[in-house]
């Protein structure tokens, strides 16, 4: 994805053709972010459009010192977190699992992970509890620090760390289960 500065300028000038071009160029990347934070593709598309509108409206604030991709990702994640906050009233119940079974070590899991395709990984992430899923996405994939995540999701740093650890463990278990079921079948 290579975004020209001219294209950004044209978008600032509200040229519809340029807006379309930008949308087309960034669609895949933005969708890959949205899909990780939402429950289904329709919801992801809806948030993608809202996020894209926010990107267009804030283009004047974009500074060329930072890569456009990074800036765009930041805006998109903010939109996703805002959307999550709006839905927070549903009062998500977080079940703290005190003891989880140690299945296999990371080495085995990593070997299995290499063989998995993206679709399978998405499916695994989606099986995580929503809050853990968000923390894992923000920390492991999008590179935010626990402090930032704590501010974004209105929790303590400790809780963020717990969610990350819990997510990893859950994913590990799920991958191990997948591997063992495949072995049994074969």
């Amino acid at each position, binding site marked *: 994805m290579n975004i020209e500065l001219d294209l950004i300028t044209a978008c600032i000038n509200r040229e519809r053709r340029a807006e379309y071009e930008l949308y087309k160029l960034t669609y895949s990347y933005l969708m890959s972010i949205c899909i990780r934070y939402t429950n289904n593709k329709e919801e992801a598309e809806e948030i*993608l459009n*809202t996020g894209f509108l926010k990107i267009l409206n804030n283009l004047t604030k974009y500074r060329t010192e930072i890569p456009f991709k990074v800036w765009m990702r930041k805006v998109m994640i903010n939109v996703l977190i805002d959307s999550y906050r709006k839905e927070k009233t549903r009062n998500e119940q977080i079940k703290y699992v005190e003891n989880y079974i140690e299945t296999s070590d990371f080495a085995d899991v*990593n070997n299995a992970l290499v063989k998995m395709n993206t679709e399978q990984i998405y499916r695994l992430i989606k099986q995580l509890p929503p809050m853990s899923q968000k923390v894992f996405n923000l920390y492991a994939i999008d590179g935010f620090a626990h402090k930032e995540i704590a501010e974004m999701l209105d929790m303590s740093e400790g809780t963020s760390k717990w969610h990350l650890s819990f997510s990893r463990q859950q994913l590990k278990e799920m991958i191990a289960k997948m591997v063992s079921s495949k072995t049994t079948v074969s």
Partner: protein
Amino acid sequence: MSTEEQNFDDLLKSKLNESEFAFNEANWDKAEQLIIRAEEKRKRRRIGFIFFFGMLLGICIMIPFIGDKSSIDKNLRSEKEALAYTNKIETKPKIESSKKVTEADVKPMNKNGGSNSISKSEVDKNSIKEVRKEDGEKTNLIEPGRTKKQKNSLANEVLTQVKEPNTNRKAPQSVRGEDYKSESNMPIIKEKEIIGSNESIKNKKEGIIEKANEIVSINQEKTESQAISVQTSDSANIPVLINSSLKKDTVITIKDSIIKTKIDSSKAIALDTTKAFKKSTIFSIDAGVNYTFGWTNNSTKEAAGVNAIFGISTTHQFSKKWGALLGIQYTSLAHLNYSNFTSNNLQYDFGYNQTKTVITPTILYYVAVPIKLQYNFNEKNGISIGANFLYLLTTNSKVGSYTQGTFGSPNYKTSTKFGYMDGFATWDLQPALAYRRRIIKCLSINAEIYYGLMDIKNNAAFGLAKSEHNNGFKITLSYNLSHK
């Protein structure tokens, strides 16, 4: 974080980054709709801001200008019969404006032309002192040698002069204006012997006031409610401004450079401006019309025209100038003709039977709640700024039904029905600026201009591409129910 954990994260990240999503054109259409809607909203907000800013600017310009003038007008109008001849005052030489009368400014003269000195160098506004002449003698304000009857007749004579400003005035002989001397044509008035204070006037219904309050200013610009013009024997008018409210029939006489007052009645000429304002609530019935500017859709003009308004309102006066208005009104938006809902029904039986129904909403009925802040320039004129909140009650639609079958001739029926509200905004907000003028005591006329912020018709429902706003002006008559 262990290396294995790090590897796990990195692996996941790289796997996820591999993902590709095919561009969906339909998704762009949705995004475009969002962009268009956002642009319209931004435009609307800009117009609303300009409108609001314009109103604020208008008020800022008008308030100081009209408010100041009207207060002078009001005061002079209400008291001109009895006291003030402003035109005359204007022609008189001015004395230093806004300057407290001091010993130096006011040089009372005795009969021999010599000036009396005042013992105090500075005038104390609130003090009422017994005034003494230079020689230490107490000032005698009552002319010696006159009976009470004579004095009363003299008082009436002066009063006649004062009350009829346009008649050829003659200086009352009894007023000893001839003794009044001035080098500079200025009223030479003995300070602290001029006018009774409010308190002294109240207490002394009859007779000449001996104790007096001080002059605050002798300056036409400083005219408040106490402008007095006193005519002397040489037909000169002496402008005198005092810091007290005069009561009806206050008689002013001049003797030996001393202006004296006499009270014949305590009935007030005008409202006492010093009286504290009492908060009040007024209820009114409003009725009138509004003219909606309307809008154009594909060269079809709609909604433009006159609609009726009626309702009730209440105004709470916080102060003499400021008040708040809250009301409830019925209003409508008629002359709609462009947008419609169409339904087709085709049934096959023995042959076919087709029914086409076209529903065209023509009138939208609203209940409006105006909330405004009022500013009264004076008793008769005022402006208000605020907003009307509109709620769509129902609609009136023209329903045309066209039926055609295999057998028989086509049939076309029209009827009117209420209640098709799909596609219309339920709420509307109209910032408004209004001017009110009182016609008679219980009736006022209001002129208002308003701008509707909401899009009346949902573009998606009617397949439209532009926003329709309910803008216009209204003229209403308000009957004051609280009037006694």
